[in-house]
């Protein structure tokens, strides 16, 4: 058999840290790093009588400017599992999408609905591999054959399985609300109100969170209610003046009109158009 020379180098697995040294050297020469869009954020999760409720605010910030006033922070993982994400927006988005795809393959392989513990394992192993460089802090909740489960996942890969969790810059305000109001086996209506109050505490007292409250309730029999928005806590103020421009306001510096040559290919006439 003829000798075959492999001209392609198979890349090593894992994260390559080469660029980190390059970035450090560039920064010494005066490069300003681009700002990541972080979500600021208040995300919360609560286990109630029949299932799990996840709550999140809807503001995405770039430093001190609001980049998105109504972004969606509750991500789909599986039909019975949803995940809230705080930290770098791209990281939370892509990480949850990836684990969601892998779980779908897992569903086909096993022929069963996914367990929340599986999603938790996949997420924590992925985040640990990247040593915290993937800046995603997640609140993972869902209902499976063993009942409702709620996990909080930190960017370095540690997880906690708890009845109520909060993450993000507004987590302290939200946790204060939870600690004051949480009871085991709450009814759905009370639990929804408590989650709404916790996210609202983050929205009003933390500058990184704002706008509306989104809720996702995963209940008995893995039934999901995705309420976006659940509570529009802040509306834009009503403008007092009129800011429309008259035609002719923008100066026309020059005009050039070009004829576009065309051939008529076909003609058709439409019957009476109903414009009522």
């Amino acid at each position, binding site marked *: 058999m003829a000798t075959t020379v492999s001209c392609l180098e198979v890349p090593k697995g894992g994260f*390559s*840290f*080469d660029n*980190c*040294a390059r970035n*450090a050297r560039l920064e010494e020469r005066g490069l300003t790093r681009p700002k990541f869009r972080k979500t*600021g954020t208040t995300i919360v999760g609560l286990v109630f009588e029949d299932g799990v409720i996840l709550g999140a605010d809807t*503001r995405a*910030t770039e430093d*001190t*400017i*609001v980049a998105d*006033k109504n972004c969606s922070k509750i991500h789909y993982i599986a039909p019975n599992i949803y995940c809230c994400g705080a930290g770098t927006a791209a990281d939370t988005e892509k990480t949850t999408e990836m684990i969601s795809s892998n779980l779908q393959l897992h569903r086909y392989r096993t022929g069963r609905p996914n367990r929340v513990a599986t999603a938790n394992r996949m997420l924590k192993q992925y985040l640990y591999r990247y040593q915290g460089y993937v800046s995603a802090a997640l609140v993972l909740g869902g209902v499976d054959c063993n009942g409702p489960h709620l996990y909080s996942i930190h960017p370095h890969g540690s997880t906690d399985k708890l009845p109520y969790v909060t993450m993000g*810059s507004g987590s302290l305000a939200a946790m204060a609300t939870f600690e004051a109001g949480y009871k085991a086996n709450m009814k759905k209506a009370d639990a929804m109100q408590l989650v709404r109050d916790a996210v609202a505490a983050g*929205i*009003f*007292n*933390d*500058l*990184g*969170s*704002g*706008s509306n409250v989104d809720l996702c309730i995963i209940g008995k029999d893995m039934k999901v209610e995705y309420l976006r928005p659940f509570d529009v*806590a*802040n*509306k*834009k*103020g*009503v*403008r*007092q*003046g009129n*800011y429309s*421009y*008259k035609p*002719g*306001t*923008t*100066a026309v510096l020059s005009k050039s009109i070009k004829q576009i040559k065309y051939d008529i290919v076909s003609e058709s006439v439409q019957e009476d158009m109903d414009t009522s």
Partner: protein
Amino acid sequence: MAMADIYQNNYMSMAPTERRFEPYAFNGGNILAVAGEDFAIVASDTRLSQGFMIHSRDHPKAVQLSSSTVLAQSGFEGDITTLKKHVKIRIDMYEHNHGKKASTSAIASMISKMLYYKRFFPYYVYNIVAGLDDVGKGCVFSYDPVGSYEREQYRAAGAANELLQPLLDNQIGHKNMEGDFLPLSKEKALQLCIDCFISAAERDITTGDCVFLHVIDKDGIATKEFPLRRD
């Protein structure tokens, strides 16, 4: 190996590290002032914040210096408090020495010198002085932190000044617009100031809660309040 370099440089370095005391903080918020034919309006939001935390929702950033002059300040609250105190004392001294009320332009010039005195450890404050000048026309003086100042018709300063200044340039300065325009009326200027803050509160996290307006005209200084988003 690349990984080992990172750890040596960042975490386990035995080289001496420098520790510095950070003398400034940024307390957020916005101020804006508009001068008309015979009036001036100063608007400021009332939120005092630091980082992601709110210190106060009821802390206006403008103060009356005399019956026809208002000083609005944004930046580091520690320096704002001290500078405000020094300015008020110097105005009292002026009135004792000269036997007359200090005019807006005199106050403006004095503040410029006070700021430059601290050229090598500046007050981290963005000032705007607004009021009626010697002939009763509205005037606005805006400053940089070390005392460079200029008389203008309108100016926005603070955290969201890049968002507000272009809007004022268009609506008051009529930049990039063709046509004839009426002179600015007090009602339209008030509406514009409030609308500016509504927009700033949408996109800047340190602006919100309430906008506090001082309207300076020949009858004195009237104040108005307008609520904003609290998130």
